[in-house]
């Protein structure tokens, strides 16, 4: 085996030492720091981006909460407005109804009064006519000169009892 020839030991070990030292210094002072730097920069960018994303997400969440709150506030306000308007209208309708019904009942009472007055008047006239007719009939039939006042008194008593029985 050529590997076991002691003559090849020293030159190989010498050059191994020289070249490996060169490689070590190249890696330790040039390559490795450069790679580490790139990796660190990338890590920073990623974590920065993640932080920004987190912040923006929090803002969006905040905006969503504000929006939802304003939406529900508006809904509540609208409902309250509708309710108060309804109450108002109800009260107004009620008031109008009261007023109108009072007016109507007043009118009805007046009309009743007028009717009553007209009725009384008509009854009075009927009484007069009846007593006239009675007097005429008595005069014609009996030939007696009867006192007008007495006849009308009698008729009035009779009619009022008839009217009482009728009504």
């Amino acid at each position: 085996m050529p590997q076991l020839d002691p003559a090849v030991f020293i030159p190989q070990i010498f050059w191994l030492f020289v070249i490996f030292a060169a490689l070590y210094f190249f890696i330790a002072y040039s390559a490795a720091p450069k790679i580490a730097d790139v990796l660190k920069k990338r890590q920073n960018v990623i974590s920065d981006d993640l932080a920004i994303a987190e912040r923006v997400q929090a803002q969006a969440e905040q905006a969503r909460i504000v929006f939802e709150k304003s939406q529900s506030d508006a809904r509540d306000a609208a409902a309250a407005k509708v309710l108060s308007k309804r109450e108002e209208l109800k009260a107004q309708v009620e008031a109008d109804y009261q007023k109108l019904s009072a007016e109507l009942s007043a009118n009805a009472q007046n009309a009743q009064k007028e009717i009553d007055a007209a009725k009384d008047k008509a009854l009075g006239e009927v009484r007069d006519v009846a007593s006239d007719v009675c007097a005429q009939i008595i005069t014609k039939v009996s030939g007696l000169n009867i006192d007008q006042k007495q006849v009308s008194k009698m008729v009035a008593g009779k009619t009022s009892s008839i009217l009482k029985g009728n009504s």
Partner: protein
Amino acid sequence: MAGPLAQFEVHTIVPLQVAGYDISFTNSALYMGVTLITIMFFMIGGMRKVALVPGRWQSSVEMCYEFIAKMLGDTTGSEGRKYFPFIFSLFMFILAANLIGMVPWLHTFTFTSHIAVTFAMAFFVFMGVTIIGFITHGFKFLMFFVPHGAPWYLLIILIPIEIISYLSRPISLSVRLFANMVAGHTMLKVFGGFVVSLGALAGVMAAGSILPFAFIVALTGLELLVACLQAYVFAILTCLYLNDALHMH
């Protein structure tokens, strides 16, 4: 035709002698240089235009980095972080060396198939880890060899076993990588030799070379896996030894 072990031969390219020691620039050293340049090309190329969203090349470089960073973090915690460049260099060096050694046709040289190289790396790791252990814990690091909760009469047996197992770490670490690479490359070469010698036969017999050729294809896939796996094993064992030195038990 060259034998299956000829691929492991070291040839001097530029002879050099310093203070009586032979430090000739060999094909082994050449491929160490090729490995270094490949890693530098891979890393500089991947990071030449760094993008927030990485492209394929940059992504590959970052994947290697994060793979080793995660492995080191998982095994040693935050104390091991300052040894990251070393572990990363070690992993990339072995990985690139193993993969370059898998390139066919070019007679590439796999220096991780040399016990001198793997043992030098393993011994360096072993010494480094031991020194870190003594620096971190002082002489209390010797308590590492005393298992917790064992009765005193067992310690007479257990302490030597612990010491031997600790001292054998550089051997197991280096031999594992070395043996895997040698075995794989030798197998490829042997079956490659079968393809050639069967193909040289007359007529229909030459078709028989299909079989070892198909085997080589499958074996190449396996060897690519082994190349990556052994780099990973070397790196993770280094991390585990480092963890022992930093945290003892």
